[in-house]
């Protein structure tokens, strides 16, 4: 998000792909873009995030198919890179639990505005890590990684997403740095209110696949959690089993995806919230029927927007292919900028980046022929 107290800023899209990182620079009014890259060609880039607190520190979670994972860091928008001196790595075996090794860092989250230099990272296998020096060194954080219950809920590679279970959606409450909500695929939604000493499970009201026990965290698969900047007590969630909203202090999620068109359903990966209006959110549905192709339903890509907190949804597909477009948009691959008329951006596994400068009413392709896109972030770099 842009820092309203900062000086001049420039909009940049960070496009993380399965074969490297690209930066798309706004060259003026979101009508002209300059593509910069590849950075780290051949690296699997899971996430790239610019620190909104300083507008300079850019962290990239990367690995290759043959080397261990690392975090790469730049303070000049990729002109120069430095590797983390100590990337996220698990500790030795404790509590009688097997020792683990980080396969890749999946999610990066800047810490609270009052804690400059603090970052959080979620990994696969599922772990939670923290840096206090702007991403240069990382350490396992909180009671979560080696808690026997959490280890059970996390499952194994055989239980999780195709390239491993993931800890993601690390939401630091803007009103309280000790309050963090996170998602585990699988393993449910959890929150800490005491800076990671203890966690409470937040799965009440969430559906699970038919035949499984909804009270058991391990059967829950939150795909993407978002907290509304304009109303931090409101959370949205795109889950394996529907779209939900939670207004704290309530603890029961409401399935707002029931209002989606039945022929489209309410399964998907990403969810985007409006930075200034907590009633507005977008999803990008996928086909979750049969063997779960995870492509746009019917081969017709479309975003859906709610402007009333999920009571109703409207289709937004102008500009997208009208047929035979079998896109997969992953949970980190759809985002919004913070302009007065909001811009939306998404990338799909076919290597195209699309954008809208009118809050989803019209879409256009901004870049194509990229590798499979895994994450897109709209950030504001200090200039």
């Amino acid at each position, binding site marked *: 998000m842009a820092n309203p107290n900062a000086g001049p800023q420039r909009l940049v899209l960070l496009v993380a792909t399965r074969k490297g990182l690209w930066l798309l620079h706004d060259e003026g009014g979101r009508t002209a873009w300059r593509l910069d890259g590849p950075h780290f060609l051949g690296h699997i880039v899971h996430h790239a995030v610019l620190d909104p607190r300083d507008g300079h520190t850019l962290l990239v979670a990367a690995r290759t198919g043959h*080397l*261990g994972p690392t975090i790469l860091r730049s303070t000049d928008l990729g002109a120069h890179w430095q590797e983390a*001196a100590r990337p996220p790595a698990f500790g030795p075996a404790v509590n009688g639990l097997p020792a683990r*090794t*980080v396969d890749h860092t999946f999610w990066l989250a800047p810490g609270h505005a009052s804690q400059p230099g603090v970052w959080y990272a979620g990994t696969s296998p599922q772990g939670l890590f923290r840096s206090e020096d702007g991403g240069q060194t990382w350490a396992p954080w909180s009671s979560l990684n080696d808690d026997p219950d959490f280890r059970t809920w996390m499952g194994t590679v055989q239980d999780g997403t195709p390239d491993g279970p993931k800890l993601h959606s690390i939401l630091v409450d803007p009103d309280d740095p000790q309050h963090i909500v996170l998602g585990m695929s699988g393993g449910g939604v959890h929150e800490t209110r005491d800076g990671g000493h203890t966690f409470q499970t937040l799965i009440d009201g969430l559906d699970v696949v038919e035949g499984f026990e909804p009270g058991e965290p391990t059967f829950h698969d939150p795909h993407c959690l978002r907290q509304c900047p304009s109303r931090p007590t409101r959370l949205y969630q795109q889950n394996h089993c529907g779209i939900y909203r939670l207004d704290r202090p309530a603890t029961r999620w409401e399935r707002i995806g029931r209002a989606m068109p039945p022929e489209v359903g309410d399964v998907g990966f990403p969810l985007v919230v409006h930075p200034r209006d907590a009633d507005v959110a977008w999803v990008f549905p996928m086909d979750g029927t049969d063997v779960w192709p995870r492509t746009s339903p019917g081969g017709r890509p479309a975003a859906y927007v709610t402007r009333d907190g999920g009571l109703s949804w409207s289709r937004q597909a102008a500009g997208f292919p009208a047929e035979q477009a079998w896109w997969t948009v992953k949970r980190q691959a759809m985002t919004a900028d913070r302009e007065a008329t909001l811009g939306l951006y998404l990338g799909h596994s076919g290597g195209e980046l699309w954008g809208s400068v009118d809050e989803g009413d019209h879409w256009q392709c901004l870049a194509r022929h990229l590798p499979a896109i895994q994450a897109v972030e709209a950030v504001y770099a200090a200039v």
Partner: protein
Amino acid sequence: MRVLIPSALQSYTQAAWVEAEGTTVGEVLADLDRQYPGIRFRMVDEQGAVRPHIRLFVNSAQVFRLDAPLAATDRLHIVQALSGG
């Protein structure tokens, strides 16, 4: 001793052949990490296991343990087994 670095790790060393010291494979990798911070973790995980696609050869013989002894005249070849798409 001389150490051959695979292409995927030459972004650290800027060279295919480098010099490192140690009386075991593990010590040589530790010395490499001192010279080129971060390079060891790309090859060896946090539990001390050589990562799946990394192969280590002393002269022409493959070694599997980090405590494998080395003589000053040995050469260590680090090889990356490529696969996938």
